[in-house]
């Protein structure tokens, strides 16, 4: 795989030298073809400023249920783009519930926080979620009865390289086999998607989420006892389009690790 990356990178370099946009890790022109987009299955908080759609994709065969949440911070565009693509999946087995714009107000403002602060600090395990939006989101997640949840987020730096940032990392809950799945998924994506000439961009597995911080993933691990993952793709030297592709690839690997298989292979 590394050799394939090297060859692909070499071709990209040659293309650049010739003035051709030969792309090392995907160009906007090579994104997935626009599939038919099904409408939302339902909405959270209809008739309010927070109204946001929920998409449910049913696989041909029965299987686990996964929930994917984007836009929990409104300015983390790659996660929102990736969630938009997740709702266009075809599933071989299982059920996928996608909420691409969890904090719609923040997404529309392009800010981290919405009307009532940071949405991802309103899910203290063992307690009622702190705001009406957080409660509505949590109720919908509980109704979905997930076997795994992932939040699609981004950060400005590189985990372990820039000590103040958590980009390019997956943070699994301590619940279930989340840590093992995260390790396998990051290794696969590092091998297949991260170019050799961006070695500091390799994804890492962060510390397991213990279940006591007020983040959505902590609450899933702590209150539901189910695996959850925070996917943090970096914005450092990576535009939103490439970030969305890497986020989507990680989500594919993580959800496959929990038994949710796409029809016709991955992205």
């Amino acid at each position, binding site marked *: 795989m590394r050799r394939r990356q090297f060859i692909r*990178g*070499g071709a*990209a*370099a040659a*293309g*650049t*030298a010739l003035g051709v*946009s*030969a*792309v*090392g*890790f*995907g*160009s*906007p*022109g090579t994104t997935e073809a626009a599939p038919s987009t099904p409408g939302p299955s339902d909405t959270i908080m209809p008739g309010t400023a927070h109204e946001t759609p929920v998409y449910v994709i049913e696989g041909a065969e029965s299987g686990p249920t996964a929930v994917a949440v984007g836009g929990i911070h409104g300015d983390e565009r790659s996660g929102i783009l990736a969630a938009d693509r997740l709702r266009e999946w075809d599933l071989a087995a299982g059920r996928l519930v996608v909420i691409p714009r969890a904090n719609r107000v923040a997404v529309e403002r392009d800010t981290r926080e919405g009307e009532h602060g940071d949405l991802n600090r309103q899910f203290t395990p063992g307690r009622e979620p702190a705001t009406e939006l957080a409660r509505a989101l949590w109720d919908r997640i509980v109704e979905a009865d997930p076997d795994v949840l992932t939040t699609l987020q981004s950060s*400005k*730096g*590189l985990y372990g*390289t*820039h*000590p*103040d*940032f958590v980009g390019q990392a997956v943070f699994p809950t301590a619940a279930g086999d989340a840590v093992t799945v995260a390790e396998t998924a990051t290794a696969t994506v590092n091998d297949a998607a991260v*170019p*050799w*000439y*961006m070695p*500091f961009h390799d994804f890492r597995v962060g510390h397991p989420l213990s279940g006591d911080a007020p983040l959505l993933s902590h609450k899933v691990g702590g209150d539901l006892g189910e695996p959850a993952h925070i996917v943090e793709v970096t914005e*450092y*030297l*990576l*535009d939103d*389009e*490439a970030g969305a592709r890497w986020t989507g690839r990680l989500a594919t690997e993580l959800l496959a690790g929990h038994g949710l298989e796409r029809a016709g292979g991955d992205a």
Partner: protein
Amino acid sequence: MSADTRTAADLRELFAGPAVVVAFALLTVPLVAGALDSAFMTPLAFPGYLVLTIGSAVGNLLFPNFALWVYWVPFAMACYGLAVIAGGVYRAARGAG
């Protein structure tokens, strides 16, 4: 040509000669292109990538409150220093040849 004129020309060659300009461009242009649009990130950006990432890692350790874009300034300065060194090595190699 006077000694003063020759010294000025030597200094110009040392700090802004063609070899320096080419080395600086090789370090910076591919990375800047890749940073503006990931579609243009290629192996040519690797040297600049190392300089910026290692520099920003040290900077983030020392000054955690600074945003990472700040490190483009020391990156440009470091690339210029490296380009002067590379230009000097190139001219020395040519002189030796």
